[in-house]
C-alpha cells in the first residue's frame, strides 16, 4: 500500500485490492469484516483496526454512502493508511487503538460507486430497482428508521432523496444496522459525505435538540477548529436541521437513537467550485485536514467513556 496512489481517484476493484493488501501487510492490526452484500452482490467490506481484546468499545467511520461523492472514498482510503502508519508513532491514536477498535467502511454504496465510474458520474443512490417505477435506487441517507418517510425525504422513486419503500429496505443500510446492533459497543459513529464543509450532529428529522447537544456542539467546535488549523478551511457546525435542512431517515439520527452519543456527519470540501468533481489534487489535502477533526472526535470519545 506504500505504492498506492493516494493522490488519484480509483475504481472499486482497486479499492478492494487496496483493502486486501492493507490487511495482508498488517495482519496484527487490520482485518476485513464483510458485513453483507450490496443489491448487485458486491461485498460490503469493513476494515477493522484492532490491537486485541474482545468486543472493545469501538468507533465507526463510513465514507461513500452517496456514491458520487468521490472525495469521501478517496479520503477513506487515506485514513486507512494513516491509521496503520500512525499506530505506534502518534501517541493519541496509539492510546485509542490500545483500548478501542476502529471500523472503517470505505465504499458504503459499492453498486452506486461502480455505476458512477462506468455509467453516470453523477449517481448518488443505491441501484435497486423500484417496483412500479422505471427509476432506480434509494437515497441511503434517507432510508434509516429515524423519522422515516417524514419531511426532508421524497416518496418519489425518481427523486434523488427517495426514502425507499420501508426503513432499512436497502441491504447497504440494513447490513450496518445489523452490525451496529450485534456489536453493541460502538461509542462513536461518523458518517462522511461531500461537499460544502460542515460538521453536524443529530437531529435532522426533528427540531427537538438532542440531550447531549451542549457537549456535541463543543466537541464539533473543537474539531472544526483543529481542521482549520492546517489550511484554514472553514466549516460550519451544528445540528443537521439547523445547519442544512430538515432531512428525515438520516444515518446519524438513527445511530444517536440507538444510544451512540458521539454521532457525527461530515460534508467535506469544497465550497462549490467543483462540487462532486473535486480535482484529484484536492484529495490528500482534504483527507489530511479531515483527519485532524476525526482525531478530535475519536480522542474525545476515548477520553469520555459512557
Amino acid at each position, binding site marked *: 500500500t506504500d*505504492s498506492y496512489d493516494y493522490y488519484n481517484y480509483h475504481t472499486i476493484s482497486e479499492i478492494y485490492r487496496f483493502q486486501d493488501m492493507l490487511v495482508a501487510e498488517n495482519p496484527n492490526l487490520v482485518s476485513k469484516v464483510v458485513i453483507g452484500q450490496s443489491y448487485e452482490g458486491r461485498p460490503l467490506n469493513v476494515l477493522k483496526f484492532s490491537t486485541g481484546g474482545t468486543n472493545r468499545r469501538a468507533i465507526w467511520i463510513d465514507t461513500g454512502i452517496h456514491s458520487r461523492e468521490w472525495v469521501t472514498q478517496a479520503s477513506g482510503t487515506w485514513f486507512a493508511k494513516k491509521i496503520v502508519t500512525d499506530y505506534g508513532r502518534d501517541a493519541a491514536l496509539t492510546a485509542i487503538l490500545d483500548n478501542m477498535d476502529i471500523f472503517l467502511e470505505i465504499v458504503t454504496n459499492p453498486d452506486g460507486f461502480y455505476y458512477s465510474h462506468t455509467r453516470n458520474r453523477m449517481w448518488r443512490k443505491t441501484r435497486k430497482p423500484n417496483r412500479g417505477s422505471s427509476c432506480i435506487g434509494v437515497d441511503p441517507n434517507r432510508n434509516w428508521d429515524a423519522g422515516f418517510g417524514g419531511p426532508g425525504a421524497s416518496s418519489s422513486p425518481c427523486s*434523488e432523496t427517495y426514502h425507499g419503500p420501508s426503513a432499512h429496505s436497502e441491504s447497504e443500510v440494513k447490513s450496518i444496522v445489523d452490525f451496529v446492533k450485534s456489536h453493541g459497543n460502538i461509542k462513536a459513529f461518523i458518517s462522511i459525505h461531500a461537499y*460544502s464543509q460542515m460538521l453536524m450532529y443529530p437531529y435532522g428529522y426533528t427540531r427537538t435538540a438532542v440531550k447531549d447537544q451542549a457537549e456535541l456542539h463543543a466537541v464539533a467546535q473543537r474539531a472544526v477548529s483543529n481542521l482549520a488549523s492546517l489550511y484554514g478551511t472553514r466549516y460550519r457546525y451544528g445540528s443537521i436541521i439547523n445547519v442544512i435542512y430538515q432531512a428525515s431517515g438520516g444515518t446519524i439520527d438513527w445511530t444517536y437513537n440507538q444510544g451512540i452519543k458521539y454521532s457525527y456527519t461530515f460534508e467535506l470540501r469544497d465550497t462549490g467550485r467543483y462540487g462532486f*468533481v473535486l*480535482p484529484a489534487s484536492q484529495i490528500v489535502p482534504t483527507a489530511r485536514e479531515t483527519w485532524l477533526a476525526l482525531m478530535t472526535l475519536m480522542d474525545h470519545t476515548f477520553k469520555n467513556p459512557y
Partner: protein
Amino acid sequence: KETFEGHQVFRIVPKDDVQLSLLKDLEDMFEFQLDFWKDVTGVGTPVDVRVPLDSLESFKSHLETRDVDYSIMIEDLQAVLDQEQEEMDSAARFAQPRN
C-alpha cells in the same frame, strides 16, 4: 454511458423568502430535469444545481424573469469530467507495477 455535454452547474444564492420559496418549488419540478447538488436551505445559503443542456435557456429565463441572480459554477460539466477521467487514466498508465 451517460454524458453531460453542455450541462452547467449554477450557483444561486436566495436573497429573500420569496426567492427561497421559488427555489424550493423548483426542487419538486421535473420540467427542467434539475439535479440539486446543494439543496435549498435558507436565505443567503448557496444552492448548486446541475442544469441539462436542453433546459439551459428556459431555466435561465425562468430565473431572470423572477429577478433571481445566479452564477455559473461549472461551464461545461463534461469537460470537467473528461479531465477527471484523463487524470485517472494517466495515473493508471504511470502506475508502477509491483516487483
